[in-house]
């Protein structure tokens, strides 16, 4: 995969588009290194929110990039950009991870709540923290694809077109799925305490 110095010296890795870097990366490790720099934090974030802890996020992030490195020579852009390809690798590895463990997909709770959220008033802090925990627990109850959508939109901050490429759906389908996700989440929050639906909704300001 190494290239002669005279060739790599002519390449501007920082300014190059992903498509250029991918072509170069087929026989130039510096180009793959640039792609790694661009996406390692994003992929890590995605996996962290799909596994629920930093240890597995590190392990699976490593696997994503080793798999990408192993297969980059065979990669051709058939309407799926490199970034979407990486997310799909991550998605498949996370799915295998969940299957192997027989677990429900989890949005992190323990790590997040232990991360030292700062509030001015201790009582308000406890109440807000409790509400956020309840919300995260409710997100956990959503089907996998709806959790994935929320992570890609709010954590990864991707456009609808990018999310569509990763999830293999149209932008319209992504918007519709988002609407249905909010409705489901609202339903879960209301159902959590059937005897006090109004109280539950008031807690969330709904």
């Amino acid at each position, binding site marked *: *995969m*190494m290239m002669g110095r005279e060739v790599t010296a002519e390449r501007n890795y920082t300014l190059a588009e992903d498509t250029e870097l991918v072509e170069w990366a087929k026989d130039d*490790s510096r180009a*793959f*290194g640039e792609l*790694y*720099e661009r996406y*390692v*934090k994003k992929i*890590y*974030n995605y996996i*962290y*929110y799909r596994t629920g802890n*930093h240890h597995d*996020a*590190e392990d699976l*992030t*490593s*696997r994503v*990039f*080793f*798999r990408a*490195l*192993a297969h980059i020579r065979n990669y051709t852009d058939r309407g799926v950009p490199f970034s979407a390809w990486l997310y799909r690798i991550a998605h498949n590895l996370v799915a295998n991870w969940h299957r192997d463990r027989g677990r429900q997909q989890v*949005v992190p709770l323990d790590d997040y709540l232990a991360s030292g959220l700062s509030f001015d008033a201790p009582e308000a802090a406890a109440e807000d923290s409790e*509400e*956020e925990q309840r*919300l*995260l627990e409710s*997100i956990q109850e959503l089907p996998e694809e709806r959790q994935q959508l*929320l*992570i890609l*939109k*709010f*954590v990864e*901050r991707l*456009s*609808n077109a990018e999310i569509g490429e990763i999830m293999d759906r149209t932008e*319209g389908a*992504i*918007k*519709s799925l*988002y*609407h249905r996700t*909010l*409705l489901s*989440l*609202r339903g879960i*929050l209301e159902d959590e305490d059937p005897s006090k639906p109004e109280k539950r*909704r008031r807690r*969330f*300001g*709904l």
Partner: protein
Amino acid sequence: MLFSFFRSQSGSQVDDFLMAHADALVRGVEEVQTLKDRTDPAFLHQVDDLLKLAEMISLALPGVIPSEQFVNELRQQLIMAGTLDDVTLWAWIRGLPPRTQLAASIGGATLTAGVVWFARRPVRNAIEGWWHRWTATA
């Protein structure tokens, strides 16, 4: 884009507005306010609970940062793997759990040692035969 036409509230129009709100949330508080200012208040009132829920979600899912040590170590491992001719094997080994990686390493080393031992046998036999012949004639 004005959302006053949402009085009709077709499903796709509500979808569009909710996603526009999510995108505004990602871009910042000012964007959200601008969007709301341009939207029919009656419609806003109808979807208010979903908007508040989306705002809670955006606050509950902050970005995380991987440790610098992890990012640097993985970069080094990838550079090393990138110099190999066949990275598939490397990636496969990396994909195994740590205990299996250790077992694979020990097994691989044992197999290699065995192959070397077998490969060296004819050479060793030839040397021994030559030695015996030499000592017998001497």
